[in-house]
């Protein structure tokens, strides 16, 4: 099988998994699905490393496995165990509309990358479109969720999108830099969890609708 084709297909799988992360109701299930998505991302890294002979990507794949597949979902899974707010789990938008929005995002992203003329990604335009689209998927996640902790997944999806962009366009970048890119997400999520815990301990809720006391 052609390497580029494999990468594009895996990228497609990425879109499906992120849609699942956004759509699933139970927060813990979302954590598991996010872990799955990250696993797909690690797979993409490995394939790119093989196709483009970029050995530093292998190191990155290892660090991405540790941080994105194990640490981040683990942290969030643990946090969901500590803080429960069933009210906030009701979705703001019906899943159908989320799916429609996702489709729209994917189409728009395909249109957007059409004009990109880079020999490096000549055969990988679908994957590039997915990486761009993930930024908006993340945004979709943030906007459609009421649970602030689940909104953290939105950030994680954006992270994955940007990681993929980096792997596609700069796959020969030094390993250290890429490791840095993946680990900073861990710190960001830890801070988000701390913030969520502070809010939870004060107001006993994770529902965005309740958090409007700062409104002037």
């Amino acid at each position: 099988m052609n390497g580029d084709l494999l990468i594009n297909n895996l990228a497609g799988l990425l879109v499906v998994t992120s849609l699942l992360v956004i759509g699933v109701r139970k927060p813990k299930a979302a954590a598991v699905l996010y872990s799955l998505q990250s696993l797909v991302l690690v797979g993409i890294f490995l394939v790119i490393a093989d196709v483009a002979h970029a050995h530093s990507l292998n190191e990155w794949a290892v660090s991405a496995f540790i941080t994105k597949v194990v640490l981040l979902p683990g942290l969030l899974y643990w946090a969901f165990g500590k803080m429960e707010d069933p009210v906030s789990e009701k979705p703001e938008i019906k899943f159908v509309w989320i799916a429609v929005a996702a489709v729209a995002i994917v189409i728009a992203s395909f249109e957007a990358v059409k004009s990109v003329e880079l020999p490096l990604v000549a055969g990988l335009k679908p994957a590039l479109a997915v990486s761009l689209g993930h930024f908006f998927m993340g945004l979709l996640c943030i906007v459609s969720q009421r649970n602030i902790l689940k909104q953290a997944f939105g950030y994680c999806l954006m992270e994955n999108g940007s990681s993929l962009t980096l792997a596609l366009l700069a796959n020969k970048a030094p390993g250290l830099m890429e490791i840095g890119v993946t680990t900073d997400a861990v710190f960001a999520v830890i801070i988000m969890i701390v913030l969520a815990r502070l809010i939870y301990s004060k107001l006993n809720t994770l529902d965005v609708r309740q958090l409007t006391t700062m409104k002037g």
Partner: protein
Amino acid sequence: MTALSVSILLYIAGALASLALNKAENTAIKLSGILGALGGVAGLFASVPTLLNGTTVVKQIYSPFYFADFMIRLDPLAAFMVMVISVLVVAASIYSISYMEEYKGKGAWAMGFFMNTFIASMVALVVSDNAFYFIVFFEMMSLASYFLVIAEQDKKAVDAGLQYFLIAHAGSVLILIAFYMMYRATGSMNFASFETLRDTAHALPVWESSVIFLLAFFGFGAKAGMIALHGWLPKAHPAAPSNGSALMSGVMVKIGVFGIIKVGIVFLGAQVLWWGFVVLAFGCVSSVLGVLYALAEHDIKRLLAYHTVENVGIILMGVGVGMIGMTTGHPVIAALGLLGGLYHLLNHAVFKGLLFLGAGSIIFRTHTKDMEKMGGLAKVMPYTALAFLIGTMAISALPPLNGFVSEWFIYQSLLSLSHGSSMAVQVGGPVAIIMLAITGALACMCFVKVFGVSFCGAPRTENAANAKEVPAPMVMGAWILAILCVVLGLGSPWIAPVISSVATSVISMDTVNVVQGAALIPADGTRAILSTPIIIIALSALILVPVLLVSVFRGPALKRRTKRDLPWACGYGYEGRMTVSAGGFTQALRSMFAPLYTLRKILDPAPAMNAVLTATTNAARKTEPVFDDYIIMPVSRLIIRLADKIKVMQHGDFRIYCLYMVIALLVLLFVPVEFGGM
């Protein structure tokens, strides 16, 4: 040059250390005092060799501004000024170590900062050789001293500070215009190119150089505190802490004189005869009026401040004679006048510094500036009293102390001037001599009053009776200057030639020989004559004569009275109130010179400034509603209406805000991409 940089760096270190240690005031006071004193010592190391060798060092330092070269020039005149500043700084800084305890909890650390900044800017000012940097340091000096003036933070000090601030800045505006005119004429802001204006080849038209001279004269004159522009000085100087007053009165006003010498003589070469007469006239009037106003004062620091006006007048007389001598082509008179002026500049710094430090010591113990509330302090503060006495003798120009020497040179230059051929100098010279003589007599009277009323007699208040000697650093600071008063007097045969070479370097002529002798008029045109050692011998002989007479014709005498006995009071019981008071002492004089005292009220700029301020506020009050009704209110109503509409965006759900951010980001990304090529 290295020593000079070390000196400035030490001042800056003192300033910053004081600023950083605002929580530990004790350490801040000590550090700023010690670093300041060390800076002064380094300043002496920088300036004295230059003075002795007569060399000039010019150096260019990196300047961040393309239009101004940061030129440093240590020529004899600059070295002389650095020396004067450094001498006084050493004494004042040592003094401040104990004196600033008084200001603990009132921002002593901030005063340490402003004091050292003030000193550093003065040193930098006299050595900078570029108009731009000169002005920058001039402003720094004015600002730092402004904060020293308002140190007490009561209404009086703040008012004094405001007046000082306004006059100082009015002065710097005039200076700025003068510098700008010279810049326009020479095309460079370096003083080196300003100096070309003194050559006849590059000389400006007379009217233009006269305008420049007058602008600079009044601009710097405001800083020097000469009469008519002196209003701020007796208010501002007393308000500062005493070590600050010492520096302001002793050194800062001299920056004004320095500026007048720089522009009038070094840049413009004293081309026009009447310039010298203007300087001489202002000098005469300042000296007489200054001392008269001083006589009427009861506040010891205000009195000293008025004496600064007087002494600046005396210095200006010397400078004026120097300028007249230059214009009329008499290098000897020129050098002699400048020698007298510069020597008096140094001497006044030393004895006025000493007197302000002494006054500070008195205030430190009695907590009052009013001399009527002192009295009898000589018994309880003997060291301070003796140092103060030396200071009063020096400022009264009693031989053989330093004040006498410099005034002698000025007398001599005026006498030589009176020999001139033109009518103007034949009349002007003697008139100036008479003015100087009146000044000397009145100064003597004034300081008899100061010393007598505050140190002699019986204490008039509880505080004065319970006073005790001040701490060692304060005694030391005063005594350094007291010893210098004697050294500068007795050592004049060796010191005058050095200052004379500074004077001749300023007028670019040969050195005047200062020879030892006792004739009043120099026998040879190139000689100035004075020998204080001979004078001291003559003086001791003068004292010896009455002693001899008494011992020969002594009849039966009363037993020597002991200190404990009360003075005889015509048979009445003696009371402290019977002591001569400051007011009573000068009563006769004040009625004699009544018209001149009313002149002070006329010259005081405060009422005029008040009137202007009231008029401005009234006008502002009238015009204010116009702006309100037609501009401010409509705009604010529009804003409120708009805000009501925009409030809808303030949804409260932060997810909406996330969307706002992304939309803003996208717009900002696309606008440059779409329209960037336009």
